[in-house]
């Protein structure tokens, strides 16, 4: 058995939902751990999505999605300050491009009001274009949601995980759950990395949540991987729009959006293409063509010549299109957190609060006296005044060496990313924590230098360094 004794709660999955739950649980004096099959936190759905903090007008009134969305949106701002991750309330717009669809727009607006979305406004085409000059001249009306925002999805996920870790939650990586057995006082969780015992299990396994659920319950659920392809553009065009621009949603979801990111890039996507493979996150020509075409309908001449990368993520779409959150009826002690597709990222803080609340009702833990609710992110010297920056370099000269010239990331930041709680162990891990390699040259210049730093700090050979998964070696031995 792994760990010193029986856990109160094992969370399966270190994505944004799992880590949000872990962080909320860490407020209590319980014994918690997170099992993650990948090498790092934020490796599945949480790493490849729109990074949007949705206002909350899209979900059906009364649904879990609607409640979690509006609550998550409300919590995000204060959380971003407590845990120091990039968030901006840039406002969002839903465009109506055809006269005969205005009714649909009005209905969406009214749904937003019912869901409790604050500050919603209906604009005519002219007003909408005044607010956002580069939107399509065909815009006949728009919803403006001032509470819409953008968040760095890695930043949010990593911050939650680090804070949970600091407050005593254990994380096991490369640990894939193979079997779940109900025992007298809880669950036996069998993994490729040993057996774990726990009173409760939380299933936050993203696109695999149905597999786990169906191991323990007769009431089967089914998740389909709904792939979203994206294109990311250079900072040079990061201000092409200032709001997040949506079209009217269709049966497959909110459709393609055009948005600035918290780091000053411009992003377009996603598609919605259902795939069989739970790891099938490759982009396709069809997908990329769709984005080009759809983005071109929403904004005038989208600057796609500035694309620096394209990628795809998989949404965990459950057939009922609703968040499935709660204890499974025929599996006491097994709590689902399944079907967390959009607005899952927005909802994460609310999901964490809600699931931790459910568990606290059962366990009635005491408060964790050592809980620290704040966390400092990796210092970005670019945010300092020149005087402060010079002081920093004097104290720690590694902040004077730029490693990633595209994103101006210093050696000091990379060392911090490696050595902090749940530190980066892969090139992608460094990238998600510091942005080194995420810029316009896409790691061409910095990766050899980053690898050198990793080898030095981790006391390993450069030939052992992986991009992400355990077989993704950068170099050949």
């Amino acid at each position, binding site marked *: 058995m792994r760990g010193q004794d029986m856990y109160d709660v094992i969370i399966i999955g270190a994505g944004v939902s799992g880590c949000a739950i872990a962080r909320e649980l860490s407020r209590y004096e319980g014994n918690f751990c997170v099992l993650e099959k990948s090498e790092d936190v934020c490796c599945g759905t949480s790493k490849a999505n729109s990074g949007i903090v949705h206002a909350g007008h899209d979900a059906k009134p009364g649904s879990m999605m609607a409640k979690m969305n509006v609550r998550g949106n409300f919590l995000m701002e204060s959380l971003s300050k407590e845990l120091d991750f990039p968030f901006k309330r840039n406002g969002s717009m839903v465009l109506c491009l055809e006269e005969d669809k205005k009714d649909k727009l009005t209905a969406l607006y009214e749904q937003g009001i019912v869901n409790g979305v604050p500050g919603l406004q209906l604009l005519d085409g002219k007003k909408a274009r005044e607010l956002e000059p580069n939107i399509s001249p065909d815009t006949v009306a728009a919803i403006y949601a001032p509470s819409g925002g953008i968040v760095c999805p890695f930043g949010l996920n990593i911050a939650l995980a680090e804070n949970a870790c600091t407050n005593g939650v254990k994380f096991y990586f490369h640990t894939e759950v193979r079997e779940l057995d109900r025992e007298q006082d809880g669950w036996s969780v069998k993994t490729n990395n040993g057996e774990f015992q726990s009173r409760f299990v939380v299933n936050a396994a993203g696109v695999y949540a149905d597999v786990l659920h169906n191991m323990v319950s007769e009431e089967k659920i089914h998740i389909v991987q709904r792939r979203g392809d994206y294109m990311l553009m250079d900072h040079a065009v990061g201000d092409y729009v200032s709001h997040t621009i949506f079209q009217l949603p269709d049966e497959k979801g909110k459709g393609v959006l055009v948005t600035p990111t918290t780091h000053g890039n411009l992003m377009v996507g996603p598609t919605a293409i259902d795939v069989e493979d739970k790891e099938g996150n*490759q982009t396709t020509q069809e997908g*990329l063509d769709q984005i080009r075409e759809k983005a071109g309908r929403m904004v005038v001449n989208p600057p796609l010549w500035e694309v620096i990368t394209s990628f795809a993520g998989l949404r965990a779409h459950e057939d009922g299109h609703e968040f499935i959150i709660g204890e499974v009826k025929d599996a006491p002690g097994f709590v689902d957190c399944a079907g967390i597709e959009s607005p899952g990222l927005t909802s994460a803080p609310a999901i964490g609060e809600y699931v931790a609340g459910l568990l606290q009702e059962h366990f009635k833990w005491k408060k964790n006296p050592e809980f620290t609710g704040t966390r400092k992110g990796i210092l970005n010297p670019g945010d300092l005044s020149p005087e402060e920056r010079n002081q920093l370099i004097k104290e720690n000269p590694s902040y*004077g060496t730029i490693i990633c010239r595209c994103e101006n990331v210093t050696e000091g930041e990379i060392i911090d990313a490696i050595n902090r709680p749940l530190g980066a162990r892969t090139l992608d891990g460094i990238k998600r924590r510091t942005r080194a390699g995420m810029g316009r040259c896409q*790691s061409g210049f910095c990766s050899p230098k980053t690898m050198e730093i990793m080898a030095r700090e981790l006391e390993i050979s450069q*030939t052992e360094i992986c991009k992400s998964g355990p077989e993704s070696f950068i170099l*050949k031995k």
Partner: protein
Amino acid sequence: MTQCDLVIIGGGPAGLAAAVAARKQGVEDILILERDGELGGILNQCIHNGFGLHTFSEELTGPEYAARFIEKVQEEAIPYKLHTMVLNITKEKTVTAMNREDGLFDIQAKAIVLAMGCRERPRGALNIPGYRPAGIFSAGTAQRLVNIEGFMPGREVVILGSGDIGLIMARRMTLKGAKVKVVAEVMPYSGGLKRNIVQCLDDYNIPLKLSHTVIDIQGKERLTGVTLAQVDENRRPVPGTEIQYKCDTLLLSVGLIPENELSKSAGIQIGSVTRGPVVNESLETSVEGIFACGNVLHVHDLVDYVSEEASMAGENAAHYIKNKEMYAARKEIPVNTGEGVRYTVPETLDIQRMRSNQTLRFRVGSVYTGAYVSVYLDDKRIQHKKRQVLAPGEMETVILKQEELQKYPKLQKITVRIEEE
């Protein structure tokens, strides 16, 4: 704030030649800022030979070529700072830079020479669909890993793009024991030098597939294969022409982009074709007293031409420092691109300031055999020279004579065009 007559940004071949030339013109106060750990730039990783035929009439390796200029910099005792990143420049010519020893610091320059070089176009910019595994490198990154760091990036290699670095790396990987299966080029012609195709591909029996591109990338962790397909005249894949290659490495040599983020911070106008600063005959950018040369200005085929151009920029910067008033009034005649010509450098020309023999460099847009390079002063053709072959991979030159241009006081425009029989 520290004052400096001439700040040179970049200590590669362009920056070094500019520094040496400026010193020869009597500029005492020069500072070279280099982001890497040694002078010489990308030449340091180009350990193959073929450099210097024009400049030194002998064949040198990249490091040897760089050493010739580094020695001159050291002989002239020109100061330089290594591991120093320039973070910003302004149109008032304040340079903000940073390193471990000095921290963040500002320098007020009288003149600046931009010599930051270029970067490689990454996979993302091409929108090649597929997975994103390890094993995809730009050719220059692979070159650094092999030649500087001493590592092998892969064993079974496909190369996309027949730019010079891709061709050189096809040979280099083969010599290091890798199997280079194919070089694919989306265009119907190679973007590299003819001599590199012969010496790097033909001599090693590496096939070059023109009008082909990668349409899919396989492998979730490390690359396991790529799919190539033929493309039509619009560069769209032709269905039914797919070929599957098993490989663990994909090298990309699909274009170089001048690194002008700093230039943009100073508000310098950037050309849409070269993606480098728009310059006049003095290689002066749209901001007075800021000059540009080498690959930051436009991507060169041979380093010899970089050195030649950079020497001009260095001399001009020296001239500017001493004769500032000559640069304030601009009476510049546009140099236009006619049929077949993608761009020219410089883009404008002042007859007063131009040299008696002014070099104008350009590239053509496709392959021509037996065509003429013509120069027009307004509608009058003054040059018409037959060339056996003109190719996009090779930079072309025409020389304009000051005394000839002085005969046309009302000259409105100069045009370079390619004329076929």
